[in-house]
């Protein structure tokens, strides 16, 4: 076993430290006890990281139009496309669309290239879809995008309010730490504010299932209530803030009375009052908010409404207090630090401030500097669609799945003159639309830094060699820069040099909390050995001194006028579609779906429907439902329950065309965005539900792939050594030949089939050398045989002796029916069958046995044995 490498989990914004050890069986993934984010814990996704490392299915060489080629040709091609577009149509005709999963160094280089050398600001990221609203809310309140809370604060609070966050599934380790703390200290109150009952509610003392999108009324109401109770921190407000009067006025105008709040939020009056009272009474409060708040056309205002309450009571900058926007992605924060957003410049310097621009340009020594904000994600794809942006570089993200109005995003890429995608996998929905594919290094192969949700900067370290021609993203951007003629400014030998430059830049900006100056002089070895640390480096907690980055040093309370979601449900689209994550998948599943273990938790896309709504619509569990919005359709099997309120449905966001048909929630979500942050309204799309009439439902387990899938609907679940498909469709396919095609590519395989034609049932299984190679089960309705037993057979090496007989049953037979020596050979009745029969029918004499089970009625030579069985059972 090697000494082990300490690195960071590449999934959620908790940013857990990971220890990787190599042993004979491959790598072992362990939590890093020394990392402050997780103190040794890992969630299921993190723990399964080892299962996502296989090179199977990886993109390992550049491709042009599907043809593999070398880096030179590919990069030449990219550089030519970008160069020509810039020359002919200006710097705004090109764009980078990046990912919150890139490392800070990747981001830094891309941002520098775009803003300082190409000269535009069309560089945006999928973080836009995640916490852009919080960024703006922070900037409005504090003058800088600073998260003024650390995980430790949650554990020191008297009250944790979780707004629009399914922490249990989306940030499992942090949730566990909170749950453990609550178990230790029951006085720690937890309030969950979420239209949906989620796993997080398990630790909640109070769950407010408010009407979707009504958060701002609730927090405005809270502000009024705090005022009524005299809970203001007068001194703090006077000395360190502005805008309290206007904020209060706006709050009063919209939510003066708890009764009004209850009405607006569709909550019981007691719940509202209990929440207000709890909030007022708790000395230390953390309000953690996430996508449920951010992904809204009024996401910035909702964030502000929350921050207002903290400012009003002076509850921030102190232990156990503060508004806490938690990020979804592992390095959204890093991207924000370097300015990797169309609306930022670099290192928390502002694009709109001439001094900041001058300072950055001087630092970079760049020929130009972007002077106005670039296109935010949704606008960017709109510009791609209408041809303003002609060359687009997409790195580490799958916008065709994750953007709202995803079909339009797809159409945009189809129309785009030049799309280059850098990814680890060639088969993402987005990669399919690229002219040039660049093989990116994956987690485990990359080195650099990330910053998690609590501003904790930690190293990601490589522990695997770069496979094939894969390269880190920063290298690709440097190569592009070189080919565009800026090589002198991008001659980085390694990530350390990039980081050092970034740290130098992130220093000395007046009033900014972000200051990495202390890290600028790390040498390569020190950088390599860097322990996790929080910024501001070497200073106290942000805002402990109550100094803010606005010029006057004061924080702002922002008046919030609550707005309903952009699209209201109406007669035509009466339901509200909500979206989110499931526990064991990450984003569009390009990585997590490679882990059979992770696929077990929630293997299929689904639509949560309230049982009563389902009954009204005639939808049975497992049946396909089409969810139609004004712009598109999403199809998924129904899961009936009561987690979603009546009139609301929930669909997980992860599924892409690579794993299911018509399950991209993005396709049904209109591209309505927050006017300030540009963040889309993912949590509130008016839709219409319909039971989808299909003629058959099927599932298949097989070693290969079904391509193309001849079904109206399908989903693929990668599993250990095989794939599971769920399918549904119309018509009467010739199952037997399909099954042969899918399950038994080689002739030696042997074959079994079951049919019940009038019920539309068809089942087949292929076996080779006692190994199950695949099954296909078809029926007219969603099928009951659990896939579990068959899946185990697919994973197990060999079929056990009794297995074969029950393969098409999809479940083992009851004890006694499988084997057992034959007793009555005339009628082929086995001993165990006799035993079961004797017991089942209460048989006493051999004659009765004969009459019931036939045994012994022909030659009778087995009668003594039958008698012995009878004697033995009595």
């Amino acid at each position, binding site marked *: 076993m090697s000494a082990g490498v300490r690195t960071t989990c590449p999934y959620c914004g908790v940013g857990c430290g990971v220890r990787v050890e190599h042993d004979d069986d491959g790598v072992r993934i362990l939590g890093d006890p020394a990392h402050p984010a997780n103190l040794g814990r890992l969630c299921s996704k993190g723990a399964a990281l080892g299962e996502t490392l296989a090179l199977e299915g990886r993109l390992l060489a550049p491709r042009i139009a599907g043809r593999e080629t070398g880096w030179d040709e590919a990069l030449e091609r990219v550089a030519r496309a970008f160069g020509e577009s810039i020359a002919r149509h200006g710097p705004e005709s090109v764009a980078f669309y990046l990912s919150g999963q890139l490392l800070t160094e990747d981001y830094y280089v891309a941002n520098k290239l775009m803003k300082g050398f190409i000269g535009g600001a069309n560089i945006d990221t999928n973080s836009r879809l995640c916490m852009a609203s919080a960024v703006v809310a922070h900037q409005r309140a504090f003058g800088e995008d600073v998260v003024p809370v650390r995980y430790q604060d949650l554990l020191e609070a008297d009250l944790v309010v979780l707004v629009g966050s399914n922490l249990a599934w989306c940030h499992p380790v942090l949730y566990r730490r909170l749950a453990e703390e609550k178990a230790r200290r029951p006085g720690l109150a937890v309030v969950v504010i979420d239209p949906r009952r989620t796993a997080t509610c398990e630790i909640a003392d109070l769950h407010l299932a408010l009407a979707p999108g009504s958060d701002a009324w609730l927090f405005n109401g809270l502000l009024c209530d705090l005022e009524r109770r005299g809970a203001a921190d007068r001194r703090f407000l006077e000395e360190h803030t502005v805008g309290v009067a206007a904020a209060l006025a706006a709050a009063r105008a919209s939510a003066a009375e708890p009764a009004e709040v209850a009405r607006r939020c569709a909550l019981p009056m007691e719940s509202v009052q209990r929440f207000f009272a709890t909030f007022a009474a708790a000395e230390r409060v953390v309000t953690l908010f996430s996508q449920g708040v951010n992904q809204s056309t009024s996401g910035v205002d909702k964030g502000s409404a929350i921050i207002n309450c903290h400012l009003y009571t002076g509850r921030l900058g102190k232990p156990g207090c503060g508004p806490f926007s938690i990020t979804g992605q592992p390095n959204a924060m890093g991207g924000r630090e370097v300015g990797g957003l169309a609306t930022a410049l670099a290192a928390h310097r502002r694009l709109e401030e001439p001094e900041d621009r001058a300072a950055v340009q001087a630092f970079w020594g760049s020929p130009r500097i972007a002077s106005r904000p670039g296109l935010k994600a949704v606008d960017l794809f709109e510009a791609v669609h209408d041809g303003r942006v002609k060359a687009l570089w997409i790195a580490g993200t799958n916008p065709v799945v994750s953007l709202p109005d995803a079909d339009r995003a797809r159409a945009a890429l189809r129309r785009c003159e030049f799309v280059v995608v850098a990814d680890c996998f060639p088969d993402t929905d987005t990669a399919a639309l690229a002219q040039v594919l660049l093989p990116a290094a994956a987690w485990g192969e990359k080195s650099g830094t990330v910053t998690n949700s609590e501003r904790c900067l930690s190293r990601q370290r490589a522990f695997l060699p770069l496979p094939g021609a894969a390269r880190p993203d920063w290298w690709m951007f440097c190569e592009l820069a070189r080919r565009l003629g800026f090589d002198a400014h991008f001659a980085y030998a390694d990530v350390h040099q990039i980081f050092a430059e970034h740290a130098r830049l992130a220093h000395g900006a007046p009033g900014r909390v972000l200051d990495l100056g202390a890290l600028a002089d790390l040498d390569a070895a020190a950088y390599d050995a860097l322990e996790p640390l929080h910024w501001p480096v070497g200073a106290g907690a942000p805002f402990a001194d109550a100094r803010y980055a606005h010029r006057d040093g004061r924080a702002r309370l922002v008046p919030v006028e609550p707005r309903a979601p952009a699209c209201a449900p109406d007669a035509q689209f009466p339901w509200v579609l909500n979206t989110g994550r499931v526990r064991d998948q990450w984003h569009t599943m390009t990585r997590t779906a490679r882990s059979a273990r992770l696929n077990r938790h929630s293997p299929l896309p689904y639509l949560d429907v309230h049982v009563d709504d389902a009954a009204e619509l005639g939808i049975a569990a497992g049946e396909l439902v089409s969810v139609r919005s004004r712009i598109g359709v999403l199809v998924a099997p129904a899961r009936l329950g009561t987690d979603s309120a009546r009139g609301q449905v929930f669909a997980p966001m992860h599924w892409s065309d690579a794993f299911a048909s018509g399950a991209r929630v993005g396709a049904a979500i209109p591209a309505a965005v927050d006017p300030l942050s540009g963040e889309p309204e993912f949590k509130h799309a008016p839709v219409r539900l319909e039971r989808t009439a299909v003629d058959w439902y099927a599932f298949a387990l097989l070693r290969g792939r079904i391509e193309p899938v001849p079904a109206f609907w399908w989903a693929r679940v990668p599993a250990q050594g095989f794939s599971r498909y769920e399918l549904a469709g119309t018509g009467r396919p010739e199952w037997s030949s399909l099954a042969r095609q899918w399950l038994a590519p080689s002739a030696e395989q*042997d*074959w*079994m*089939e*079951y*049919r*019940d*034609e*009038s*019920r539309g*049932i068809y089942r087949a299984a292929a*076996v080779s050398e006692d190994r199950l190679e695949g099954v296909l089960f078809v029926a007219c309705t969603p099928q*009951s045989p659990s896939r579990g037993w068959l899946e185990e057979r697919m994973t197990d090496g060999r079929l056990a002796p009794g297995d*074969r*007989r*029950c393969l*098409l*049953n999809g*479940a*083992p*037979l*009851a*004890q*006694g*029916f*499988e084997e057992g020596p*034959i007793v009555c*050979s*005339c*009628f*082929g*009745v*086995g001993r165990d*069958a006799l035993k*079961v*029969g004797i017991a*089942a029918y209460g048989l006493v004499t051999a004659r009765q046995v004969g009459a*019931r*089970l*036939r*045994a012994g*009625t*022909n*030659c009778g*030579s087995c009668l003594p044995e039958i008698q012995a069985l009878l004697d033995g059972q009595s």
Partner: protein
Amino acid sequence: MSDRHAWQRVCRWQDILPESGVCARVGERQIAVFRAGEHVFALDNLDPCSGANVLARGIVGELRGELVVASPIYKQHFSLRSGRCLESPRHSVRAYPARVLDGSVWVRARRRLVVVGNGIAGLRVVEELLAIAPQAYDVVVFGAEPHWGYDRSLLSPVLAGETEAEAIELHPRSWYVEHGITLHAGDPVVAIDRGRRTVRSANGVTVGYDRLLLATGSHPVRLDIPGAQLPGVVSFRNLGDLGAMLDAIRPQGRAVVVGGGVLGVEAAAGLRLRGMSVTLVHRHAQLMDRHLDEEAGRLLAASLRARGIDLRLEATVDAVLGATAACGVRTSQDESLAAELVVTAIGIRPNADLARSAGLRCERGILVDDTMQSFDPAIYAVGECIQHRNTTFGMVAPLWEQGRVCAVHLAEVGVSRYVERVRPVQLKVSGLEVFSVGRIAAAQGREVLTLRDARRGVYKRLVLEQDRLVGALLVGDVQDAPWYLDLLQVGRPVTDLRSTLIFGPGATPAAAGAR
């Protein structure tokens, strides 16, 4: 009914002391009448061991759960019910019907039952009768074959060398003796005088009967083609045929089996196992066409071919070749097949010759009603010789029930009617499991479930009608046959079992629950 067989009052109930006996005279005989608990019994008074008329003075008691009287001389125990001697069955005595009515004890002389046919059906009636009314009849059995009764259906395993010829005997000689049954083996009955109620045998034995049971079985259908009479042409019906076949077996021997039904297939498989080269000639495209569907027929054919049996399907035999003995056959496909042994298995025909000549109503077989009675109330018939509600029989299973029903009526101990039920067919060739029952063809209103597993050689076909199982065909895996048969015969709706029906009883929700 003659006086001889009328119930006769012998004494009053209280004339007999509890748990003891008295002697009475019935016709010519001395009869010992016993009182045991609430019941009366009657036995011959003559003790066969001592030759003295003493049994009435014996002590009544119980031995091994049976009411007995102990002979006062040598202390042997005789069953009060059947007269059987527990120590030495050879020395059993006769029992007589006895009953208590209006405070009096009545005894009746035994009547005579003559059974024609020493096969399964006839003997089954006797067995049942012995079980329910051992005192009722003196039984005389005539058998045309020179053997003790044997189970014909086990000829196939004997041919295949899987069963010893001795093992197929239905009862040992001693059984007849112990039960006082007179057997005339190798002596067929040639005439019935229904007026006098006598039968006459080929050897000239004439026996009177009170009841006559015809169980004469069936004739194999013979080929009606040139050469069919030649030595070397045998059917597959009895031990004689079997002997002829076994005699014909020699290394490099060649046989042709004509007829691809159950019997033909078993004959072919058996001969092949004995090392013969075998060609099976079958009229239809599909073997066992009455019981299998096309696919099962294909599987069966493939499996026979795999055993080295040549098949000629959609072919008949037009002639048996040979001058003094068979040396081959010519088929309708104009092919000559060399063979020293030609086995015909082209069907059976009820053997109603004797009944017909006695003027009993016959069609294809002897017509019987639901009690197995023929048109002559003194004559019953069971087995392959009968025609019941337009059905004739070719298998063992229905005979069990016919035997039971017939015995109940002969014993006059209740009512019972024979109801024809769906009967399964099963091939007795080891490694070639085939089970078929009911209606297996597809038709309007029928639903068909199939399961195939080629490598295991398994094919299952279940046919439902109105949610009830009406047919089942199992090839290669017949373990669940009894279950299907039960479902089919009981006629229970299988709605709740439908989804797992083909996987057998072990897959039912109830069984799965017990798992």
